[in-house]
């Protein structure tokens, strides 16, 4: 299947780059329509409360008010969800988390609407609050969703072999507990959506910063009680999503649509950063208990894992997020005996759902920290322990799946990363470096003579690595297929479109490259069309790093369909024999090395002969199998592999971690879009460092403290050093020339690599993310005693 590529793998400038860099790209909030209304949300500052009554009398008749929208205005379903319909569009008798919206006002002035909100009287009774996920399954725990009858959202068991036997055969058995924090996607563009009523027979049109237009359409249609075909969703340029503009955008689209139908006018909802952080879902905090049995020689014999994920108040994507966790919780290791339980539970905390990584960053932090700890107990290096246990072709994963039909490149990415970063030498040097440690003791807050550390002793260097395997696309989550539309024009330019969405990851460019490669033209000749659910075939959600794999497969298929229509034409036109090889390259068409015509010339000819130059390509994933009872089966149809090495400096006096360099080696299969792929690595690693060191949404009894970027500290360009992307291009029969997944793998590895590097630097193992100042110094987090800020006094 090796091929000489002419466009694939070369750096190609981003399709939407010029518009974005010059500021002319239109984002959702740039849309302004004559007569458009704005909105304001009614919430109460409570985590859990019974609503007794709402009194709108003080604002009724106000000149600034066009409509009050409540649940009574909803013709269809009143609760929505991407998996389960449990989240009220407008709350009725209860709020279960502080982001909940009770009603929405629509009017011409946002400012006046906000004043009106303050005049509405909501009579409510605060209820007891459940914030500790470990108490969610207690017998007498209060129920977040009474209809469900339990706070258990989902339980994924996995049983392979016999762990007790495995522990009994082991020389050592250790148990460790790891926790990870709640984090925010922090897309730079807050949510914005406009709903435009199109008249009774035409339904409604919605334009917004929407990650998954087809999911949004399904939910809006159900809320409005309209057929799918009458709800048209158009995607604006998206200012970041990272999995975050799914449920929330479905919700806001539904609210805007309800208001648009009620008022007969276009309605825009746009969120401030505070609204966004308050209401949008986040990444699941995990509490993970790992027990591992291993032999003196380093072989892991058994692993028992118990994980609780805090799903917050709504189901959202919890069942799928935790499903990926159960599949990948043991990491990329061959372990005979595995016993895993992953449970997602309800609390009154901010709800959690999809976020880039999707149930993998948490267990990777745990399992890769654990591997290093086992290695150091046995006096093995981090590389040796992984060589001993790492999965190879033909090995069986924890779910009993045999890894086959693709290059199983785990050890290749590991060895490549080790070599590129000079890991082994650095790791040894750091370890042998004399350690001077400072361990503050709060019972004696004033330091004594020998507590003090000289400046030259305060910085310690460390290097650490982590590895992963990741199942590509949706796997056992559900139907997995995508469509692309390709249309050649008579002048040789091309329209291209796909049902997967451009969420900033650069798929327009990647897909253009694929089509250009097949047809022997250049990406600049391709004009990428906007995603509109009225025109583009449903291709499922743009998630799970599936665009290049699934959408790329569909684009390639579309281009090949057309090519197969053109070849007979060429052969008859130039009277070529069957054996002649037709080549499309460099905007030219040739036969056995002899140029016949240009690509535009061929298009003109085909057009004049009445050949259909448009096609819909389709790509459907191979089947997967899953047994929910024992967590066994072929979970995903293929996998990718990654290894990241983090080099850090730890300041033992302040607890600061400087990430100086990350070497990121990924086998994402064939690299189609080189610049795009590197961009994924830079962004993903930076987000991974944010997750590992800087970011945390904390809350006091469910009320979030960090509602803006002054206190929610995503890393800046000054907070991370060099990032070195390295690609190992393994073969795979799937997708376009074996191009697979990269977006999420780049994010999932850094936190564990950093934690391992910190251990290499200072000899202290940290078990709780983020590795912020207090965690490094004290091994715990400190929280303000209340949410009041002095600056507001």
């Amino acid at each position, binding site marked *: 299947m090796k091929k000489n590529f002419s466009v694939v793998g070369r750096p190609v400038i981003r399709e939407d780059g010029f518009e974005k860099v010059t500021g002319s790209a239109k984002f959702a909030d740039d849309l302004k329509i004559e007569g458009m209304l704005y909105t304001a949300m009614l919430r109460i500052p409570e985590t859990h409360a019974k609503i007794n009554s709402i009194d709108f009398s003080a604002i009724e008749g106000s000149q600034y008010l066009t409509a009050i929208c409540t649940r009574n205005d909803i013709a269809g379903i009143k609760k929505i969800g991407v998996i389960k319909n449990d989240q009220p569009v407008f709350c009725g008798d209860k709020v279960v988390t502080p982001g909940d919206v009770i009603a929405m006002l629509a009017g011409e002035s946002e400012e006046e609407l906000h004043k009106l909100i303050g005049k509405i009287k909501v009579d409510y009774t605060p209820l007891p609050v459940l914030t500790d996920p470990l108490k969610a399954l207690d017998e007498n725990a209060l129920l977040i969703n009474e209809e469900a009858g339990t706070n258990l959202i989902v339980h994924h068991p996995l049983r392979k072999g016999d762990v007790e036997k495995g522990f009994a055969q082991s020389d050592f058995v250790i148990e460790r507990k790891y926790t990870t924090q709640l984090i925010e996607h922090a897309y730079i563009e807050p949510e914005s959506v406009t709903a435009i009523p199109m008249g009774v027979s035409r339904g409604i049109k919605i334009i917004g910063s929407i990650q998954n237009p087809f999911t949004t359409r399904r939910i809006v249609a159900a809320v409005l009680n309209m057929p799918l075909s009458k709800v048209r969703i158009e995607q604006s340029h998206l200012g970041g999503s990272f999995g975050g503009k799914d449920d929330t955008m479905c919700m806001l689209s539904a609210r805007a649509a309800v208001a648009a139908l009620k008022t007969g006018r276009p309605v825009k909802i746009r969120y401030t950063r505070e609204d966004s952080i308050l209401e949008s879902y986040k990444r699941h905090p995990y509490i993970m208990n790992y027990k591992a049995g291993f032999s003196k020689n380093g072989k892991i014999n058994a692993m028992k894992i118990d994980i609780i994920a805090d799903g917050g108040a709504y189901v959202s994507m919890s069942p799928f997020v935790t499903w990926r966790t159960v599949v990948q919780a043991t990491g990329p290791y061959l372990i005979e005996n595995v016993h895993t339980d992953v449970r997602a539970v309800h609390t009154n905390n901010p709800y959690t759902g999809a976020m880039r990584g999707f149930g993998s960053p948490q267990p990777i932090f745990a399992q890769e920290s654990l591997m290093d700890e086992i290695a150091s107990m046995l006096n093995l290096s981090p590389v040796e322990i992984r060589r001993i246990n790492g999965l190879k072709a033909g090995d069986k994963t924890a779910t009993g799946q045999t890894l086959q039909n693709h290059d199983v490149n785990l050890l290749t990415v590991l060895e490549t990363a080790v070599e590129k970063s000079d890991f082994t030498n650095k790791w040894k040097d750091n370890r042998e470096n004399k350690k001077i440690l400072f361990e503050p003791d709060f019972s004696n807050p*004033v330091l004594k003579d020998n507590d003090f550390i000289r*400046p030259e002793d305060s910085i310690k260097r460390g290097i650490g690595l982590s590895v992963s395997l990741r199942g590509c696309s949706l796997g056992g989550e559900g139907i997995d297929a995508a469509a692309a539309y390709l249309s050649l024009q008579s002048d040789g330019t091309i329209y291209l479109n796909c049902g997967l969405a451009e969420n900033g990851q650069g798929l327009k460019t990647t897909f253009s490259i694929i089509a250009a490669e097949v047809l022997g033209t250049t990406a600049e000749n391709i004009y990428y069309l906007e995603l509109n659910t009225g025109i583009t075939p449903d291709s499922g959600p743009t998630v799970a790093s599936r665009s290049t794999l699934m959408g790329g497969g569909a684009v390639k298929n579309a281009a090949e369909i057309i090519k197969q229509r053109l070849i007979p034409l060429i052969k008859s036109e130039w009277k070529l024999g069957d054996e002649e090889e037709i080549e499309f390259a460099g905007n030219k068409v040739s036969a056995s090395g002899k140029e016949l015509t240009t690509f535009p010339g061929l298009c003109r000819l085909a057009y004049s002969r009445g050949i259909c130059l448009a096609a819909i390509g389709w790509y459907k994933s191979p089947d997967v199998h899953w047994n929910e009872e024992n967590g066994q089966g072929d979970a995903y149809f293929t996998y990718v592999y990654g290894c990241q090495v983090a080099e850090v400096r730890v300041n033992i006096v302040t607890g600061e971690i400087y990430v100086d360099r990350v070497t990121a080696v990924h086998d994402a299969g064939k690299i189609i879009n080189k610049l795009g792929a590197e961009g994924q690595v830079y962004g993903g690693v930076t987000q991974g460092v944010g997750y590992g060191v800087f970011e945390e949404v904390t809350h006091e009894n469910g009320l979030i403290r960090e509602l803006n*970027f002054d206190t929610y500290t995503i890393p800046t360009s000054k907070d991370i050093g060099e990032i070195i992307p390295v690609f190992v291009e393994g073969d795979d029969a799937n997708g376009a020339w074996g191009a697979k997944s990269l977006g999420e793998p780049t994010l999932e590895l850094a936190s564990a690599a950093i934690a391992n590097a910190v251990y290499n630097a200072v000899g202290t193992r940290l078990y709780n993310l983020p590795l912020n100042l207090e965690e490094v110094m004290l091994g715990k987090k400190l929280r303000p005693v209340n949410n009041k800020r002095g600056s*507001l*006094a």
Partner: protein
Amino acid sequence: MNNIEITIPKTLQEALELISGGNEGIGIIAGGTDVVAGMRQGSNRFGGINQLVDVNHIKEMKGITGAGGIVTIGAAETFSGIISNKIIRKELPLLAKACGTIGSVQIRNRATIAGNFVNNAPCADTVPVLLAYDSTIEIKSLAGKRELPLAEFLKAPYRTQLNSDEIVTSIKVPLPKGDFKGDFYKLGRRRAVAISRITLALLIEIKESRINRLRIASGAVTPIGTRFNGIEKEFEGKTADEKTLKAIASRLGERVIEVTGLRWSSEYKLPVVQQICYQMLYSAVYGGGK
């Protein structure tokens, strides 16, 4: 956010007239990086304001001049302006460094020095430095002008001695006479656009192996930027050896507990501020510091 009228006077006289009426609804805006953010957050400090007097275009309040061993900085001078000034970079390096740690380039291009200490947040980064340099400020109203040490001007978090008819016009920083060494230190949760968790400004002069003069000021670990005169007195004249430097740092820890009390963050901040103080002293005395 409120509907606000903004007036842009060209002269100080005009500005002083605008605010002279005792109207509670009038406020001053310079860079606006505290005012606008505060209004948007619904801070009570700016709640009643419906008119803002913009002081950015008043010539008398801009510019940096040096004469008679004193550097005078216009109150409406931006941090970017201050950092790019040669005299300040050479003679007042701690100030240049502190200004360089504020926010981001965009913030430094707008935010002014007076805005920083009039706002008087515990984490105002220039305050400890200005205190260590013994700065005084000049305030004017229609009634006249007054000059007072910055230390006196700052009362409590977000509170100063400024009256509603007054404008800060300049800040005067005497050039330290003698062979001072020292540094400004800032610790935040990240390396840019960071709210300070700890700041320290330190100047030390050694003569014949003894501490001749010492100046220490903190921010963020104390309710407002604070100069530690007591510690300075106590250790002036002592031998500048490691033992003394450690003793100074420990004493700072004790004083911070006295001034601030024990807070949720003390378990982290207290040991760190002492270590940092020791390291800054160490670098100043044994090299490494500026």
